């Protein structure tokens, strides 16, 4: 782990400066920091997937960025290593056989749909063609009943992508999550937050 990352990790847990005053011990902070470091150094972020084959892997990498692209506030799903997260979940000992089958089957469903429509796989299809399929399955309430299996897969895949993206440091910053820090005191919520809800102390 680079020094910058180490500093970031300490900043993220927000207690470097407060630690001694509130009694959180330095060795505990060090343990948290090391855990973050171990993750970054481990095979989890390796390029070669464990669960997905090469074709599935490229499909996943394309698909996640359609769901969460880079924008002015934060990076894309692939930049946040969402494909690696999904690959880990699928190869984890906790993964159910049902979820593995549904994942492979869902990716195959998308390819099959693209073959029928365009004679190409999802990754080989053009941007417009890919969007045509996604537009048909990304809105469960508007989707045609005959596409229900694609809808089911995409809803689950969208959830996984969001899980994988927003649970990163990039994701925490994106939604401006301010917690997971040790505070010297609890003073309630700030006046702007109270005002927004029309409540007060």
């Amino acid at each position, binding site marked *: 782990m680079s020094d910058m990352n180490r500093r970031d990790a300490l900043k993220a847990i927000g207690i470097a400066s407060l630690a001694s005053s509130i009694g959180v011990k330095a060795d505990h902070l060090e343990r948290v920091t090391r855990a973050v470091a171990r993750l970054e150094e481990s095979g989890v972020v390796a390029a070669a997937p464990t669960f997905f084959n090469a074709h599935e892997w490229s499909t996943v990498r394309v698909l996640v960025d359609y769901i969460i692209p880079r924008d002015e506030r934060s990076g894309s799903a692939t930049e946040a290593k969402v494909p690696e997260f999904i690959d*880990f979940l699928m190869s*984890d000992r906790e993964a159910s056989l049902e979820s593995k089958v549904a994942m492979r089957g869902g990716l195959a469903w998308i390819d099959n749909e693209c073959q029928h429509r365009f004679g190409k796989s999802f990754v080989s299809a053009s941007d417009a063609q890919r969007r045509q399929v996604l537009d048909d399955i990304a809105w469960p309430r508007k989707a045609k009943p005959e596409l229900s299996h694609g809808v089911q897969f995409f809803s689950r895949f*969208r*959830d996984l992508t969001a899980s994988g993206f927003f*649970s990163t440091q990039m994701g925490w910053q994106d*939604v401006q999550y301010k917690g997971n820090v040790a505070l010297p005191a*609890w003073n309630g919520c700030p006046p702007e937050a109270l005002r927004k809800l029309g409540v007060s102390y």
Partner: protein
Amino acid sequence: MAYDVCIVGSGAGGGMAAYALTKAGANVVMLEAGPSFFASRDSKMLMPAYASPRRGASTKERPFGEFDACDGGWEIDGEPYTVASGSKFMWWRARMLGGRTNHWGRISLRFGPRDFKAKSRDGLGDDWPIAYEDVAPYYDRVDRLIGLFGSHENLPNEPNGIFLPPPKPRCYELLVKKASDKLNVTCIPARLSILTQPLNGRAGCHYCGQCNRGCTVKANFSSPDVLIAPALATKRLTLITNAMAREVTVGKDGLATGVSYVDKTTGMDKHVEARIVVLAASALETSRILLNSKSSLFPQGLANSSGTVGKYITDTTGTDLAGFIPAMMDHVPHNEDGVGGMHLYMPWWLDNAKLDFPRGYHIEVWGGLYAPSAGFMGGIDRYQGGGYGKQLKQDYRKYYGATIGFSGRGEMIPNDESYMEIDPNVVDRWGIPVSRFHWGWTDHEFNQVKHMHETFRALITEMGGQIFSPMPTKEQGYNISTGGQIIHELGGTRMGSDPKTSVVNANCQAHDVKNLFINDGGPFVSQADKNPTWTILALSWRTSDFIASQRKEGAI
């Protein structure tokens, strides 16, 4: 060498017994089925989701998320249980020092005067042989030793305690309070055993909201750091971990002589000798140990001449509902982690005489901003329809933190269909016969849970919120929890004055075996609409005082 006391289990009941008995001068040995664990040393507090490739998702060993302190669950390798056909039941076991005190939500409610004498009011279940006044001094002592925050409300069945100041509500909780006031639902500061000020050498809370992971500065209650550590400091406590109790052994005189157990590290059977045995293995594990402690003197199992061991078991009723609150969209970024639990809650506020169910419930509140981790905003399409791309990304930001949820937790009345026995055919990996459960809710519980849903819906509507699921139907059991799911199992060795209908007397001493005591949730006669831990602690202290006085008199 014989110990003065052998305690089986190290959770709230066992930890308190070890604390009180070692302080009273007894030489104590404690058997714990799992490994050692002290949150002050072993907690995953402040670990960000991204410190793990699983991002905090649950695992088999940790159904409440991989950072949760508690190693245990409804399914444990090598430790099966069975459920009679037609019944549904889930049995949670914690397997670690401190037991469930590593898991619980720190909700620390005293049973009230009515809770001890509910039958006198509505004719259902049974009264306890003791009253609130008998336990009140021990509640006070628990409050002073362990600490909790709360507020004096002078409510008839929610006794005041010795409270630390409660934390200010989170902003969304104020919204809940406003809606509650409008609907005449009592909404008051929560009562949680989390220190808002330093107490007895333990630090005050630093408001990271992660009590469930265990606290490295001991700002919340767990048995190892708050009870077992001081007991060990007396040098009169011998702790044996990875020790799975098999049975309580008895002598020819019918008195308990100790406990035989499996040393899980070697698989070998061992025995500890003790003059007094205290079972605090958790209500249903204690019943299992007694029923498995068969001998020619006690052919139906130990302390079971009444045939009621394993009977009169209850769990808290439960159901949950979340609502999307448009007013909370586009949140103002701020830290609202707070303590590891709700800052406000609703105690039971109605008169059952005017309702179609006899006992009450309380409501727990959750929602708002939280640390994004595995499962983040799953099912966002229910809120905004779905989609993908920049708009979707924007929607996650917009809808994040815009949910408020309610959990109803109510009182079940013991019934004849709900009991535990020993399965005649199945053993666990150590050859110990396993428990078989029978379970049935009645209309008392179903109607109560229906009322919970009606209340939740009214509250969410009052806040201008939307609900994404229809009102559950009678056929769906109004989405009542499965027995055991709320992890408040009580009973099985209930307290009573009559040895023919109860297992222990008013001092939690077995009617049949005078040197055998039960210090967990087993002796509870009623469930109440309160989380049981504070009462387990108070009763265990009371029982331990009784044991100490009996030892002094030479009676046992």
